[in-house]
């Protein structure tokens, strides 16, 4: 262990995490918070499936169902999937490019706390008069009509966490452009880094429209403006456009990093370099680019007219081509390889048919006239759970098993991992395959119940049984985590023995400065290149020297906390006498913290050469 992270008491550890600016610790924070929200979203999914298991059910009331449904979608997308991916990006991407940290460690921490407080705020709605209930899309007419404060929680909570995501994206972009180790050219970057790059670019351009949309909705709800009020000349379709200009890129923000994770896993466990690396990069960029041209495919039935529908239909179909390139490249990566079926590899392998199923139904949806039938039916629900669960969640589970040793220093149990995998896989297909047919048979989505005699009974009960399988799978995973952190196998640097990229060149878990000496990268799959030449570690690109480290700071937390507090003031602004005071207090906390940050110079500190040499004797290689 490094001299700088000796055993500490609980209080000190907690303080350490609250103030950390280390990308590896922030990654763990993302993983914990995102994991918690995933369980919450999953619990909400279970409520949905219980309610819909039989016709005319009374497990939950209609109003409550809408809240659960809205929070399930919102939580899963904004507070579970994206943060979990951010966790892996934080933990792994700097290691993969041979960097000591991200470009803006302080901003990195700020991004996390903004997300966290935004998510917390959103979920407090459960206890403060009811959660948002207009669907995760929160279409304007319904959301302006919605009573209580649910929608206000949605608007303010997503605004806060959205800012966190945006600055996180900028941070990754700059890191990848400016902080690569010597020799790490763009075309030598691992695909996970590439997909982080493209996803971050999508975040940069997709979140501002959401920010604007949320702001307009906030103005309409809180200050009585007329953006979405037809009686004042407003137009609700503007919200739909702004939401989907954000919303469609958002789904690629989710899937591209998952693609990146799979690319790493396929190459590693096939012991083969990624087939068609440059076309993989090209396809990733192209998907990102096309992602901005297709948003109106969510609005085919809005009545935009045949010209718009036709253009967006064809543009949408085009995305199938680069995605197909990726699928075939993965297959050909395995072709001729030496495939080892570890738990992460099982997820990667199962991902291919599952995701292709979801992708091709996406292409079916893109056929506008047919979408008049599919739209807002369970066919769409089936489509997006196939791509999201079969793509993103599989990716997250694969990444969890794959990088767990690198992040926590212990292997997860492979047998338990495989139990989770099979239960989850079976449950997933059981739940969602049948939903295609339910949709085609006329079952609309977002319904809190259905009446008997329409032919929906069998399908729904099968679907609910499937969800139970997934729940058990998740419980087994939790058990696995608890069990192995007590007595799991300790991970070596190259935990899977077939590691190809730089993260496997340093100890598991990585020391806080990552690389004692920056590595010299001599080709794609930098570590593999060295291994093939019979070396065990990277060639350093610089002599051993002092390492500059950023200082910890509590300010990211307090800046975010201030916004969290101020949001309550906004929410109750014309209802409670204390609202103005609360707004001011929040503002003072936030701006005060920002002011402190800007007047107090922060030059970081250095780890001295002597201490690093010391480390060496204790067995840490870099």
């Amino acid at each position, binding site marked *: 262990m490094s001299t700088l992270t000796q055993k500490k008491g609980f209080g000190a550890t907690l303080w350490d995490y609250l103030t950390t600016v280390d990308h590896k610790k922030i990654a763990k924070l993302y993983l914990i918070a995102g994991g918690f929200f995933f369980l919450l979203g999953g619990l909400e999914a279970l409520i949905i499936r219980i309610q819909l298991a039989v016709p005319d059910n009374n497990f939950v009331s209609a*109003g409550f169902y809408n809240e659960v449904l809205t929070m399930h979608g919102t939580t899963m997308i904004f507070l579970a999937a994206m943060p979990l991916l951010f966790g892996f990006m934080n933990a792994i991407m700097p290691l993969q490019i041979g960097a000591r940290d991200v470009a803006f460690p302080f901003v990195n921490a700020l991004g996390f706390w903004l997300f966290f407080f935004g998510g917390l705020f959103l979920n407090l709605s459960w206890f403060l008069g009811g959660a948002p209930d207009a669907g995760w899309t929160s279409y304007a007419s319904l959301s302006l009509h919605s009573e209580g404060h649910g929608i206000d929680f949605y608007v303010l909570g997503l605004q806060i966490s959205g800012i966190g995501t945006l600055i996180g994206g900028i941070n990754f972009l700059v890191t990848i452009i400016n902080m690569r180790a010597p020799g790490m050219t763009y075309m030598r970057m691992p695909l996970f880094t590439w997909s982080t790059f493209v996803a971050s670019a999508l975040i940069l351009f997709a979140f501002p429209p959401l920010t604007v949309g949320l702001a307009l909705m906030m103005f309409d709800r809180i200050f009585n403006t007329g953006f979405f009020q037809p009686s004042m000349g407003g137009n609700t379709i503007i919200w739909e456009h702004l939401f989907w200009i954000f919303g469609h890129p958002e789904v690629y923000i989710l899937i591209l990093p998952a693609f990146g994770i799979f690319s790493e896993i396929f190459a590693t466990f*096939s012991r*083969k370099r990624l087939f068609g690396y440059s076309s993989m990069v090209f396809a990733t960029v192209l998907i990102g680019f096309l992602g901005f041209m297709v948003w109106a495919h969510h609005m085919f039935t809005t009545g935009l007219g045949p010209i718009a529908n036709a253009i967006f239909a*064809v543009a949408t179909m085009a995305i199938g081509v680069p995605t197909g390139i990726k699928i075939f490249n993965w297959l050909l990566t395995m072709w001729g390889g030496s495939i080892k079926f570890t738990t992460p590899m099982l997820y990667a392998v199962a991902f291919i048919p599952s995701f292709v199923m979801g992708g091709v139904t996406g292409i079916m949806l893109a056929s506008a006239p*047919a979408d008049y039938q599919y739209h807002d039916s369970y066919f769409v629900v089936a489509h997006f759970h196939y791509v999201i669960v079969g793509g993103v969640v599989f990716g997250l589970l694969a990444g969890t098993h794959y990088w767990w040793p690198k992040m926590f220093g212990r292997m997860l149990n492979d047998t338990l991992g495989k139990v989770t995998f099979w239960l989850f896989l079976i449950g997933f297909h059981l739940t969602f395959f049948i939903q295609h047919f339910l949709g085609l048979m006329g079952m609309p989505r977002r319904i809190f119940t259905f009446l008997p005699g329409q032919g929906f009974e069998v399908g729904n009960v099968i679907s609910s049984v499937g969800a139970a399988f997934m729940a058990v799978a998740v419980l087994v995973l939790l058990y696995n985590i608890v069990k192995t952190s007590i007595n799991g196998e300790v991970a070596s640097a190259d935990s899977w023995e077939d590691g190809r990229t730089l993260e496997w060149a340093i100890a598991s878990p990585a020391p806080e400065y990552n690389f004692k000496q920056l590595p010299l990268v001599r080709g794609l799959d930098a570590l593999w290149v060295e291994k093939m030449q019979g070396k065990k570690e990277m060639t350093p690109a610089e002599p051993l020297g002092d390492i500059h480290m950023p200082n910890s700071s509590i300010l990211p937390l307090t800046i975010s906390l201030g916004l969290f507090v101020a949001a309550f003031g906004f929410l109750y602004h014309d209802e409670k006498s204390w609202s103005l005071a609360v707004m001011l207090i929040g503002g003072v906390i936030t701006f005060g913290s920002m002011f402190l940050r800007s007047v107090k110079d922060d030059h970081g500190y250095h780890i001295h050469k002597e201490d690093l040499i010391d480390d060496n004797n204790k067995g840490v290689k870099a």
Partner: protein
Amino acid sequence: MKKWLPNMRLFTLFSFMALLLAGCGEPYVSALQPAGEVAEMQYDLMILATLIMVIVIAVVTVIFILVLLRFRRKKGDENKIPKQVEGSHKLEIIWTVIPILLLLVLAVPTVSATFKLADVSAMDKKDEDAIVINVTANLYWWEFEYPNQEIVTAQELIVPTDEKVYFNLKAADVKHSFWIPAVGGKMDTNTENTNRFWLKFDSKKTEEAGGLFYGKCAELCGPSHALMDFKVKPLPRAEFDQWVDKMTAAKGQEKPETSTDVARTGEEIFNTSCITCHAVNPGEKRPTAPNLANFGDRSSIAGKLEHSEENLKAWLRDPEEVKPGNKMTGTYGDLTEQDLDALTEYLMGLSVED
């Protein structure tokens, strides 16, 4: 070269898929049992798309299975290092071009159908004969106005079969979406503009479905979104015209005839408690509540319950129980059991049929 052979195979596969999917669901709600030109066009597109997708999935699956069978790491291979292949331009071109071609096959009929389904030019021609219906979606109930015939009904849409019926779609409060799965895809009812589209109801399929289709609201609109159903009754043109005549005739009457004393009591209660919201004259539009002029002829109550006296009483006793969040709950004071009996008798007698 036998050019027809692939066509033949395609055709077989096509009909096989069609067979597989048809028979799914109930004929009165299922989009897989198309009962009109629009639904048929959409169904054909679905089948074509499914076919292409089955091909794609088949190709992927074949490669996938081959890979998994042939290239697993076997005992004794633990130290084998496979050849590190960079890629293959030839293969990459193949799997770029073939998907593009497949997508073109789907794109062309997609575009053509998009324009066909959007063709409502007959509405602008002020064609007297074309049936136009103004649909207004309200929180959990549907109003159907026939502007050319100047009659209004609610909850149960009555249309002629085997001809194009044109719709003007609008929402009164929040956005809803008008969907009759068996007859054609949906169209949103927006709050700020009127959307237009057409549907066609096939007479034979109507019969097979039992004379009645289910319509649904397909846009989340509040607690009772799930229950915002309506029914569609397609009639042959002659019968439809008769119905219109009866409705028109009923408009002339001062008020609907009432036959029994109980019904008359019901009428009185109705006129004190309900008339402020509900119209009973088929010529009158009220934004507040469904027109009840032909309530006795309907096949459902509030779009959801089966049409029976008990159910009507249940609805009047506590609408909230039936449709959470509906706009009638708590607007008309308490009703005694006698009141309910009277109202039921009266309402069931509201009919334009003989």
